[in-house]
């Protein structure tokens, strides 16, 4: 198994807060890795470093064997890393479909000034993506009017529209109603496998982790505490105590 992405010795501090301390992690191609951990453990920070939003004070990140530590989000995205956000990052004034079309145009580098966005060849593909995340009925609504849950789904779809090799998802299901969570992630997971996308997702819902993760990594206070198969990790005493909590 080759490591698609590898983090070595990442360090980052914010004032006195340690958000990453000697973080070493390999992400294997074709697998879904879940990251769990208490709030403020440094999960989002890890994603931020890997996607170029933050620069670590020490350590390196490699993607496909290439160093990307000092690269900008834009350059890293161009290498095939996409991201969905904890708080959805969308183009509020554009419709759901347009959001996806813009992503597709960016992917295909359609810069010609006189082509129309609504008529680029990827339109059908994008409609299909919308269908996948159950949002066809809101395709023509400006996303700023949509509720948070739907925005999260569209945010994931935008990331998928880039056809990445590696997809980071920060709490993809928080804010999505529990009745829909599984159905949606089922579809996303299927799409990921089909297009052989490796994924890393931060998640607080252990049901989701159990069902979709091939592997789990546990974060606490800026460190990777454990890593392993979901069944093992989720029953580990530390994890139960710090992350999952016992039924009271």
């Amino acid at each position, binding site marked *: 198994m080759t490591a698609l992405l590898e983090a070595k010795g990442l360090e980052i501090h914010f004032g006195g807060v340690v958000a990453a301390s000697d973080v070493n992690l390999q992400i294997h191609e074709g697998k879904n890795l879940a990251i769990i951990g208490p709030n403020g453990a440094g999960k989002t920070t890890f994603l931020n470093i890997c*996607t170029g939003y933050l620069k670590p004070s020490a350590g390196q990140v490699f993607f496909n064997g290439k160093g990307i530590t000092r690269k*900008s*989000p*834009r*350059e890293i*995205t*161009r290498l095939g890393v*996409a*991201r969905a956000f904890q708080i959805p*990052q*969308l*183009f*509020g*004034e*554009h419709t759901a479909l*347009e959001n996806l*079309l*813009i*992503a597709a*145009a*960016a*992917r295909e580098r*359609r*810069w*010609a*000034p*006189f*082509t*129309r*966005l*609504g008529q*680029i060849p990827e339109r059908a593909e994008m409609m299909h993506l919308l269908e996948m995340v159950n949002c066809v009925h809101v395709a023509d609504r400006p996303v*700023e009017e949509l509720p948070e849950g739907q925005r999260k789904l569209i945010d994931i779809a*935008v*990331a998928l529209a*880039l056809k990445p090799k590696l997809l980071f998802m920060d709490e993809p299901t928080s804010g999505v109603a529990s009745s829909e969570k599984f159905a949606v992630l089922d579809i996303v997971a299927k799409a990921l496998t089909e297009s052989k996308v490796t994924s890393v997702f931060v998640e607080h819902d252990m049901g989701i982790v159990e069902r979709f993760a091939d592997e789990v990594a546990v974060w606490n206070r800026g460190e990777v505490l454990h890593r392993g198969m979901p069944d093992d990790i989720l029953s580990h005493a530390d994890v139960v105590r710090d992350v999952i909590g016992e039924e009271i």
Partner: protein
Amino acid sequence: MSLVPRLAIPLLLIAVALLPFLAPWSKVMLTLALAKGLAVLGIVVLLHAGQVSFGHALFFAVAAYSAAFLGQAFGGGELVSMVLIGVASAVVVGLLVGLFVVRYRYIFFGMLNLAFSMIVFSVLEKFYHYTGGSDGLQVARPLVLGIEMERPAFESLLFYGGLVIAVIVAWAVHRYFDSPIGHMLKTIKTNETRLEYLGVSARRVLLVGYLVSAALCGLGGVLMAVAQGIVTPEYAWWIRSGELVFIAILGGAGSVSGAFVGALVYEVVRTYASAFAGDVWQMILGFFLLGIILYAPRGLIGVYGSFMGRIGSNTASGKEAKRRAMEAAE
């Protein structure tokens, strides 16, 4: 687009084109309105990105002075080369300034543009040995493709030529807005982070928009310079930049046709206000602007749109209106 607005633009164009036959003096005023409309279109491009420049008069002035220098260097000059050189120098300066300002947003973007324009303004005033100081430079009537023209013919040429150019440019900008890169420009207003995470450089997208807007302002500046026959540092003054933004909002922010409609209405209101209310024309314009912003924030184009909507709802979309009425009655 429904039928009515589709006809509206050609009708308006024809009306404007015919106006000089009724009132000969209006030809130059309309040419100036066109020139400003072009510059306002430049502002509209940036408004699409949510950015307001309070210094775009800079490009207006750069192009106008380039044309004037060219004219002086060649004892009159040639209209076509003036336009080309003027626009080209606006684009070059746009690139220099743009590389710097596209790193900033909102108020900083506006203020930096203001700063650059004020620097150019001050230089134009200070270095009067080269620029003629506040009196500016005369722009003698240039040849047109080698032909010398009398004032009336020249003025007609400028007006009708300007009208044709404006139509072409407006169409091009319209298409630009609807292109992927035009839509990306709009996302600078809403979410740059995501744009970067799509692998697109927000700065580059904005720079393209900035160059387009500089070119448009430049085109307007040259037209203004040759129509006026003189260029002055006032072309670069902040009030002038403010005026361009003012017109953009007046016409309807973000609307291509609004830029020209706004410029036309502004020019007419301003001319008549200063003619018939000599000492309170500023106040009249001020109230006019307040009225537009408070009661018709989508500008004149918006007013027109809702007016047409109301007429339309009696006919075409009567069903929709009925549904609304029923809902209201519930």
